[in-house]
C-alpha cells in the first residue's frame, strides 16, 4: 500500500510540474485554451456538486454562471470594486439566487426538475437581454470589465491568467475532495442513491438538496467572475441552453460524482474542438457523435468515481476493529444496566402504561381506495410485535404512515407519548425510530460502511466549513462514526466486506446491511418490513436468533411485518392481524394460530 501511495504521489508531482511548465512550451493561443479548460473545470465541478454528487437534474446551470459574471461586471464597471473582492460577492450572489429560485421547486423530481431548471436558465438569459433597470446592457452586454490584481500584481497576460485560474482550481479541488469525504458529501450521495432511504435514515433531504444547489451555484459564480475579468466583456449569448447542456455533458462524460472525471470532461469539451480545428465546420458534429458513442460504450463516464475505502482519516482499519471490540463490551454493559430498569415492566403486552408506539384511529386513503381504516395499534416496550395479514391488507401503508412517508388522512401516531403525526421522516428518525424496507433500499453505489454511517448522520454536527478545514472535532466525529459503523458491521457479520459496494453483496447480506444501517442510529423502536423475505431457511433462522438477541442487548422494541409464518409464530410476543385495512384480531401467537377469523382471512371461507 505504501508503495502505491508513493507512485501516486510521484505522478501527482509530475502532473503539477507539467502544469507549471506548460506555458513555457506553448504559445498564447494554447495557453488560453488551457485557461478555458480551467474555467470549464470549475464549472464542471460546480455542476458536479448538483448533478453528480446529489443527482439533481440541472439543465440550467449556466444561469448561475451568468449571475456571477454579471455581478462582477456590473459592480466593477459601476462602482469600480476590484475584481478579486468580487469573487466572494459573485459566489454569494449566485448562491443566494440559487436559494431563492430553487426553494419552491426543490421537491420536484427527475424530469420535472430538469424542465424547471431549463426554464430558469432561459428566463435569466432573456432577462439579461432585456436589460432590466438598464443594468445588464442588453444583447450587447457589458464591456470594460477590469482585470484582477493580487496586491500590486496585475493579472493580464494569458500566462498569468492561466496560473490564476489553475491556482484557484487547485484550492477548489482540495476543498471539494475534503467535502466529498465528509458527512456533507456522504449526505449528498445518500440522497442521490435513494432519497427515501436517506430521509428515513435521518437526513434532511430538502436541506441537503438546497445546500447542493447553493454551493454549486456559488462555485459557478466564481467561474463567472473569472470569465468576465478575462474577456473583459459579458454578454447574454454566452449563457445559453447550449452552454448548460455542455456543462451537463462535462459531468456525464467524466462520470457522476467524480472530481477527476469532471476535470477530464472539461478538458475534452475545451480541447477536443481545438484539436479538430482543421475540420472547422465539422468539429462540433464529431463532438455530438462522440457524446453518443461515449454513452453507448461507457454510460458511467470515462473516469467514474472509485469509492474511497474511508481510510483517509483512519490509517489502519484493523486498529479500529480492535478498539471496537473493546468498546463493544462497554456498550453491552451500559445496555445491560438499562435493561434491568426496564425489566420491571409488566409482562402483559397489552397493558397501557408501557407502549412505546400507539396509533389512534389511523386512516389512509389513496384516491378512492381506503388502504388503512381506523387502525389502532399498540406496541409494547421491549417486545416483538408482528403485523400479519394477506397481501394488500395495508400493512406496509401503516409503516409508511408511522415513519412519516405518508401523512395520514386522519388519526394520530404517538411515539413514547409524543404526537409524531405528520412529522417529516428524518425528524421521526431522529426521535429514535428506524426502519427497513420491503424491497431493500440501500445506497447501492456506496460502500457498506458508508451505508451504515447514514444512520449516524443525524447524530453528527460537522458542516461545510468544519469539513473543509477538517477541524479537530470533525475528525474526532468521523472517527467516532466509523467506529460505531464498524461495530454494527461486525455485529451483523459484515465486518469483512466494509469496503465493498452495497450493490455487490448477495441478497441476504444486503438485508443484513439494511438492518445494520437501521441499528446504527441506536433506535428505541426498530420497524422491519418482511425481514426474512428472500432469505433461505438457515439465514432466516440466524436472523431470528439475532433479532431476539437485540431485544436483550439493546433495550430495543421491534415491530415487524412478516409473511413467513414460521418467523412470526416463532419470535413474536404479540401478533396483530390486518385485513382490508382493518385490525381483525390480535393476541399471542398461539391465540392467533387458532383464531377462526385469521384462518378465514388466510385460507378463505368454505361455503
Amino acid at each position, binding site marked *: 500500500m505504501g508503495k502505491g501511495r508513493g507512485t501516486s504521489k510521484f505522478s501527482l508531482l509530475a502532473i503539477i510540474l507539467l502544469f507549471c511548465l506548460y506555458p513555457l512550451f506553448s504559445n498564447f493561443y494554447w495557453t488560453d485554451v488551457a485557461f478555458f479548460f480551467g474555467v470549464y473545470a470549475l464549472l464542471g465541478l460546480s455542476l458536479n456538486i448538483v448533478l453528480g454528487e446529489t443527482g439533481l437534474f440541472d439543465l440550467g446551470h449556466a444561469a448561475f454562471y451568468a449571475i456571477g459574471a454579471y455581478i462582477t461586471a456590473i459592480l466593477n464597471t459601476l462602482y469600480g470594486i476590484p475584481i478579486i473582492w468580487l469573487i466572494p460577492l459573485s459566489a454569494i450572489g449566485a448562491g443566494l439566487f440559487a436559494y431563492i429560485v430553487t426553494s419552491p421547486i426543490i421537491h420536484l423530481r427527475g424530469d420535472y426538475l430538469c424542465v424547471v431548471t431549463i426554464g430558469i436558465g432561459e428566463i435569466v438569459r432573456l432577462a439579461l437581454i432585456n436589460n432590466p433597470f438598464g443594468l445588464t446592457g442588453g444583447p450587447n452586454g457589458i464591456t470594460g470589465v477590469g482585470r484582477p490584481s493580487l496586491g500590486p500584481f496585475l493579472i493580464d497576460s494569458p500566462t498569468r491568467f492561466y496560473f490564476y485560474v489553475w491556482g484557484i482550481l487547485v484550492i477548489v479541488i482540495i476543498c471539494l475532495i475534503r467535502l466529498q469525504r465528509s458527512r456533507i458529501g456522504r449526505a449528498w450521495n445518500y440522497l442521490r442513491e435513494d432519497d427515501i432511504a436517506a430521509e428515513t435514515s435521518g437526513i434532511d433531504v430538502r436541506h441537503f438538496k438546497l445546500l447542493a444547489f447553493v454551493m454549486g451555484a456559488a462555485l459557478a459564480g466564481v467561474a463567472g467572475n473569472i470569465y468576465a475579468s478575462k474577456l473583459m466583456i459579458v454578454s447574454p449569448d454566452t449563457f445559453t441552453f447550449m452552454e448548460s447542456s455542455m456543462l451537463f455533458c462535462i459531468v456525464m462524460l467524466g462520470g457522476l460524482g467524480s472530481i477527476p472525471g469532471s476535470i477530464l470532461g472539461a478538458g475534452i469539451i475545451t480541447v477536443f474542438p481545438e484539436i479538430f480545428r482543421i475540420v472547422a465546420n465539422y468539429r462540433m458534429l464529431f463532438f455530438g457523435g462522440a457524446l453518443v458513442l461515449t454513452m453507448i460504450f461507457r454510460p458511467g463516464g470515462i473516469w467514474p468515481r472509485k469509492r474511497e475505502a474511508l481510510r483517509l482519516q483512519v490509517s489502519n482499519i484493523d486498529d479500529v476493529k480492535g478498539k471496537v471490540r473493546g468498546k463493544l463490551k462497554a456498550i453491552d454493559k451500559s445496555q445491560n444496566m438499562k435493561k434491568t430498569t426496564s425489566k420491571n415492566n409488566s409482562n402483559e403486552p397489552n397493558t397501557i402504561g408501557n407502549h412505546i408506539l400507539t396509533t389512534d384511529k389511523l386512516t389512509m386513503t389513496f384516491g*378512492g*381506495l381506503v388502504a388503512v381504516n381506523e387502525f389502532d395499534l399498540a406496541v409494547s416496550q421491549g417486545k416483538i410485535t408482528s403485523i400479519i395479514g*394477506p*397481501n*394488500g*391488507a395495508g400493512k406496509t401503508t401503516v409503516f409508511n404512515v408511522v415513519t412519516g412517508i405518508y401523512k395520514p388522512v386522519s388519526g394520530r401516531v404517538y411515539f413514547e407519548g409524543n404526537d409524531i403525526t405528520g412529522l417529516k421522516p428524518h425528524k421521526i428518525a431522529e426521535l429514535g425510530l428506524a426502519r427497513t424496507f420491503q424491497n431493500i433500499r440501500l445506497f447501492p453505489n456506496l460502500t457498506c460502511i458508508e451505508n451504515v454511517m447514514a444512520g449516524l448522520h443525524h447524530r453528527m454536527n460537522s458542516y461545510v466549513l468544519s469539513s473543509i478545514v477538517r477541524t479537530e472535532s470533525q475528525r474526532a466525529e468521523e472517527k467516532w462514526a466509523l467506529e460505531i459503523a464498524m461495530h454494527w458491521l461486525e455485529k451483523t457479520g459484515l465486518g469483512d466486506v466494509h469496503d465493498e459496494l452495497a450493490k455487490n453483496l*448477495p*441478497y*441476504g447480506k*444486503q438485508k443484513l446491511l439494511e438492518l445494520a444501517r437501521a441499528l446504527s442510529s441506536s433506535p428505541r423502536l426498530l420497524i422491519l418490513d*418482511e425481514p426474512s*423475505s*428472500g432469505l*433461505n*431457511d438457515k439465514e432466516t433462522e440466524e436472523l431470528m436468533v439475532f433479532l431476539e438477541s437485540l431485544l436483550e442487548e439493546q433495550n430495543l422494541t421491534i415491530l415487524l411485518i412478516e*409473511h*413467513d*409464518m*414460521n*418467523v*412470526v*409464530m*416463532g419470535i413474536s410476543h404479540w401478533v396483530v392481524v390486518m385485513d*382490508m385495512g382493518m385490525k381483525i384480531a390480535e393476541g399471542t*401467537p*398461539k391465540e392467533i*394460530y387458532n383464531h377462526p377469523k*385469521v*384462518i378465514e382471512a*388466510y*385460507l*378463505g*371461507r*368454505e*361455503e
Partner: protein
Amino acid sequence: MSELLVLENVVVTYGAVQALKDVSLKLYEGQIVAVLGANGAGKSTMLKSISKIVPLQSGKIYYKGKDLSLVPAHELASLGISHVPEGRRVFSTLTVEENLNLGAYGGRERLSQKEVEAEKQWIFELFPVLLERKNQLAGTLSGGEQQMLALGRGLISKPTLLLLDEPSLGLAPILVKEIFNAIRKIHEERGVSILLVEQNAKKALAEAHYAYILETGKISIEGPSSQLANDDRVKAAYLGGSALEKKFENK
C-alpha cells in the same frame, strides 16, 4: 387428455434471489390447476415465467408441446395464452371498452371481428357492471370492477389457457364469491383451461382439479384438490404451524 402446459425444472432468479427452485408442473387440457402458497412463495413469478415477463435461468416450458423459449413474449397471446396478472393492471386512462378491445389485440389474426363482438357480449353478460360502465375510464372503477375488467380483458381473445393470478386479492367476501362463480362459468361454458394462483386456499381447492403448494420457491405438496382440502399440512404451510409447535415443545 393431452398435456397443455408443462414446466420442467424451472429455475428463476432475481438478482441474487432464487425465486423458483426447480419447479415442475403439468396441466392437462380442460383442467383447472391451482397453485397455492403463502405470500412470497414464488407463485406470481411462476406465472410471469410462463408469459415470459421474467426470463428462465434454466429449465423448459412447453405449451401444446411447443418450446416457449423460441416464442417472443408478444406472440404468446396469439397462441391462446392469456395472463391476468396480480394487481389487475387495467389501463387506467383508457375506457372500459378500450381495455376490453385491447384484450383481443393478440388474437386479432385468429379471430374475426364478429367473434370478438360475440365474446364481448358474453363478458357483458358475465359481468353486467362492465356494460354499464363501458365508456368510463378504467381507473375510476372500484377494485372489484377492475378485477372483472381484467378478467374480461383476458377472456375476450378466446384463450385456450388462462393464467389467473390472485383474482380474489383485496376483494370483499361478496365479490370474492362473484369472481369465483365467474371462474367456474368460464371453465364450464368456454372450456378454458386455467392455471389459478390463489391465496384463498379453500376457494381455490373447491374449484380446481389438481393443486400444487409452493413454499419458498419449491413445490412442497401436490395432489388432487379433494385430497389436499383435508390436509393439515396445507394449513401449516400458510400459518407456519411447524415453528409454533417447535416453540411450544421447547417450552
